[in-house]
């Protein structure tokens, strides 16, 4: 009786070794992706975290581009305004000289009238 028990006990580890080791099963990348996706979908907080990160990043990039365009708008407007101011300034300068001419003509006319009296 005791011998049978010892033999049976010896067989147990033999049985364990006799099992084939679970080698890496050759699966296709698509299958593996599916497994991964299933695992992600199975855990709702994980997928939420990923979506949130992507959205924030995109939002930041959009915001940066928008601010760059806005700043450039400011520069374009500033440049156009500068040119306008310069042109208007020159026209005012011309107008002032014109006024000076008129005053001088009036003065000359008065002097001539005074002299020819």
């Amino acid at each position, binding site marked *: 009786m005791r011998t049978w028990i010892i033999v049976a006990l010896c067989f147990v580890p033999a049985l364990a070794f006799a099992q084939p080791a679970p080698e890496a099963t050759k699966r296709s990348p698509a299958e593996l992706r599916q497994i991964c996706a299933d695992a992600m979908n199975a855990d709702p907080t994980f997928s939420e975290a990923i979506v949130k990160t992507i959205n924030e990043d995109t939002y930041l990039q959009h915001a940066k581009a928008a601010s*760059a*365009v806005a*700043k*450039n*708008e400011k*520069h*374009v407007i*500033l*440049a*156009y305004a*500068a*040119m306008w101011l*310069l*042109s208007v*300034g*020159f*026209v005012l300068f*011309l107008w002032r*000289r*014109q006024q000076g*001419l008129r005053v*001088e*003509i009036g003065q*000359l006319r008065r*002097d*001539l009238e005074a*002299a*020819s009296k």
Partner: protein
Amino acid sequence: MSNKAIPVLATLSAIGLVVTLWLVFTYAPFEPVLLFNQKIFYWHVPHAFMLFLATTICGVSSLVFLKKRTPKWDDLALATAEIAVVFGAAVLITGSIWAKAAWDIWWSWEKRLTMSLLLWLALVGYVLVRRFAGASADRLAAGLAVFGTLGIPFIYTMVDKSDRHPQAGSGGNVMTLTGPMKLVFWMSVLTFFLWFLTLVMMRVQSAAGERELRELREKGLDAGVLS
């Protein structure tokens, strides 16, 4: 002639200005690298062209004045010099703003900016000499304009040709523009050329008027009519 020409030119340039503005903001496409701030180029470069044109006219007209001493050439030289100062200031200021928008620096000794600055300085000198040199101001300023214009090819040869900063506008040369950009650009050049002509004619008229007044007064003094 000039009585009709000035209002006509002014109206034409006003129309051209509206059309150009509309074209720049609706028709011209975005340039891939600089995007929106490249629009400054449609205002900045025509002013630079007019600066060079005005300087050349001033130099040639000064030379003719020195040789012939006919006053109308002096008027033309004075008018183009003052207008070159205005347009040059526009080029430098808008160039500076554009540089800040595009490359985040206010100034660089890049060849086009340097050339414009040097020409502008010579013409500011012209205006100063005209004002402060007294009786022989017209001769002196004319001499400055002649030598200054003579130096243009030398300045062009000596400026730092290495384009240290990327040049905006399709490969850096306006001659390589194509398509809608080309149309808008040359429309803009035409508009500012008309505006330039308007300003020159107005200033020449003003200078001629002042000269006539001076001569009339001197005649009156000589004749003993005036005191």
